[in-house]
């Protein structure tokens, strides 16, 4: 027996107190750790967003960008919203091949990729049928008409077509795009070839070399796109309010053709929905945005023809949201840490007050100050370590839901902001609805709000180290509190005890 092991034994002298102090402390430490995990996750996301800030500028017809961040699911939802009757000032705004050339000539623009998106009606425009979407059809079809259930069964999802002049740009807009088989199409050609999403391929029994019909033409499948996305499998976006997997669904069911092929087939020669310009240097992004905006000019009403936005600007919105989540978790982390310290402080205060007399006796029979302090350090350490072990469990269990809650509350508010039409936005979409065109790909360029929901919660060994650090600090607080009082106990109190 020495003073340390006596301290360890003392930690269990009052079972009920040991249990209650440990549990409360565990809760505080657990929440602190969960906050730490949340904070790390958010910081990691901030870093990755910052690192991924490319030198891309997205150019879409004015008003389209209002739907950024909503994905295909969001796009479809909007497209079916009612109000066809309202007039549309920006209906005429589309981009053209001529605009693409202008943009390519703007200073600092290294390259520009153009995309035309078209929805082909299953059965009429094409022999393809869409795979069943995973999101709620009822909402998309008609949120205002609950009696339309019968019509749902008869409804055929349109096929999303994308014409691209630079298929490699797909990767930067859609994220992790991989060909599961075959080759990429040549975007600059006018070949009757396509790559199709794997879900669409499965639905229609398409393989590399298969053919399908589109606007009366026979198109050959050159490759199949893999829709599996490794980053979304452990992402926290289940509460984000977006149709889960909406993006995958889109990749899985899309048909990508050379730009000029699709323009010709859909009878929209020269039409482009969105352009992504790549700037030679991130520092020139702002200048290029201004230059492109003025190059494209204004319409008859004096409004800009196109919305020109850089990744940088979008990323900033995301980073701002993430930073506020991080602040919240930092404050909570500190609050939980302080709570833990206060709990052990009070607990040890209680212990030492209760044992005043015993401390007096120990001193009276010759215990050195060091001996008594060692005893309380051990006792405080045992309580805290127990709490940390339980707290680690609490933290690990709480980290993911906690991060989700933090992220989704922030995400839903930022989504609202992004979803708010920014000047004639909804009208713009209606215009394209009547054309049967969707600005879907343009939305992918706007990674901003979606990125928040992609915060990945990762619990690793550093958290255990942090936990031990927290334990040591908390134990030190408790032991110090106890020792300071214990040192003040006069040995003569042993004589006075009742």
């Amino acid at each position, binding site marked *: *027996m*020495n003073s340390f092991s006596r301290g360890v034994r003392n930690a269990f002298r009052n079972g009920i107190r040991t249990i209650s102090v440990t549990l409360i402390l565990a809760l505080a430490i657990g929440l602190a750790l969960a906050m730490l995990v949340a904070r790390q996750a958010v910081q990691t996301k901030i870093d990755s967003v910052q690192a991924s800030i490319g030198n891309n500028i997205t150019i879409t017809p004015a008003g389209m960008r209002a739907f950024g961040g909503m994905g295909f699911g969001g796009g479809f939802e909007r497209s079916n919203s009612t109000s066809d009757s309202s007039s549309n000032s920006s209906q005429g705004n589309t981009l053209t091949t001529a605009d693409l050339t202008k943009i390519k000539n703007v200073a600092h623009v290294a390259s520009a990729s153009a995309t035309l998106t078209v929805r082909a009606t299953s059965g009429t425009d094409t022999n393809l049928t869409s795979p069943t979407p995973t999101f709620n059809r009822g909402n998309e079809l008609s949120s205002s008409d609950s009696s339309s259930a019968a019509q749902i069964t008869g409804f055929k999802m349109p096929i999303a077509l994308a014409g691209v002049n630079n298929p490699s740009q797909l990767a930067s807009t859609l994220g992790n795009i991989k060909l599961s088989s075959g080759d990429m199409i040549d975007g600059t050609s006018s070949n009757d070839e396509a790559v199709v999403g794997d879900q669409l391929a499965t639905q229609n029994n398409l393989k590399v070399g298969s053919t399908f019909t589109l606007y009366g033409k026979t198109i050959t499948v050159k490759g199949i796109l893999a829709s599996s996305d490794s980053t979304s499998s452990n992402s926290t976006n289940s509460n984000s309010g977006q149709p889960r997997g909406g993006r995958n669904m889109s990749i899985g069911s899309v048909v990508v053709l050379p730009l000029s092929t699709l323009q010709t087939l859909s009878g929209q020669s020269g039409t482009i929905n969105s352009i992504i310009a790549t700037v030679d240097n991130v520092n020139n992004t702002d200048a290029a945005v201004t230059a492109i905006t003025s190059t494209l000019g204004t319409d008859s009403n004096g409004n800009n023809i196109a919305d020109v936005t850089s990744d940088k600007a979008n990323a900033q919105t995301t980073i701002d949201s993430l930073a506020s989540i991080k602040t919240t978790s930092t404050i909570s982390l500190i609050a939980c840490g302080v709570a833990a310290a206060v709990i052990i402080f009070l607990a040890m205060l209680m212990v030492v007050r209760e044992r005043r007399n015993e401390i007096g006796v120990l001193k009276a*029979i*010759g215990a050195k100050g060091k001996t008594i302090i060692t005893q309380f350090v051990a006792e405080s350490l045992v309580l805290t370590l127990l709490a940390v072990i339980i707290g680690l469990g609490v933290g690990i269990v709480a980290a993911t839901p906690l991060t989700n809650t933090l992220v989704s509350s922030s995400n839903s508010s930022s989504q609202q902001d992004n979803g708010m039409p920014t000047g004639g936005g909804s009208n713009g979409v209606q215009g394209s609805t009547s054309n049967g065109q969707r600005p879907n790909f343009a939305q992918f360029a706007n990674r901003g709000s979606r990125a928040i929901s992609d915060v990945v919660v990762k619990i690793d060994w550093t958290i255990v180290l942090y936990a031990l650090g927290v334990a040591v600090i908390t134990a030190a607080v408790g032991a110090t509190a106890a020792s300071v009082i214990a040192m003040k106990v006069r*040995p003569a109190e*042993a*004589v006075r005890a009742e």
Partner: protein
Amino acid sequence: MLKVSNLTKEFKAGDGSTITAVNDVSFAVSDGVFASIIGKSGSGKSTLLSLLGALDRPTSGNIEVADKNIEKINGRELDDYRCHEIGFVFQNYQLIPNLTARENVCLAMEFAGVDRPTRIARAEELLDQVGIKGARQLSRPGKLSGGEQQRVAIARALANKPNLILADEPTGNLDDTTGKMIFDLLHQLSRKENATVVAVTHDLDIAGRTDMSFRISDGKLVETTRSRKK
């Protein structure tokens, strides 16, 4: 030799007035003597004892134990004095409740830096002498009677072979018969270990059987009685 000269201890009461618990007390006790202190409640007996045990500091005066002035010692020396020179026995035993009888006795020796096998051997020997034998030595205080607990406390007080044993009403919580037995034990063992004893008691019968008896009243030493033997 324990020599006390002009010892005074004042306390500040809550209302700011001064209580003189020990008032200019002087006496001397030769080595190996069993002395008793008697006096009414509140007369200053416990205060005097805690001054002798260096549990508290006097306001003025000197305490000389084995030619050493202990009223001014500090720090490590103070711990050593309490540990090696003094054995304390308290009215309410004051054993550590979550330690066994043997561990309680070992504790004092641990503070004195005695190695583990030696202190266990000595603890067992002492506990045997006070009549706590076998498995009882591994009982916690809560499982022992008051008399048994005080026996353990006496063993603890003797553990480091102190020169001075201070006992504050060691039989105060015990019935007469047990009290007498405990006092006899203390007497017998202190003689065997050749320790000086100063014991507070309110039992005049017991006091009458000690070598020397001091009567305290209102902090003052009012009467010293010597038995014919010494």
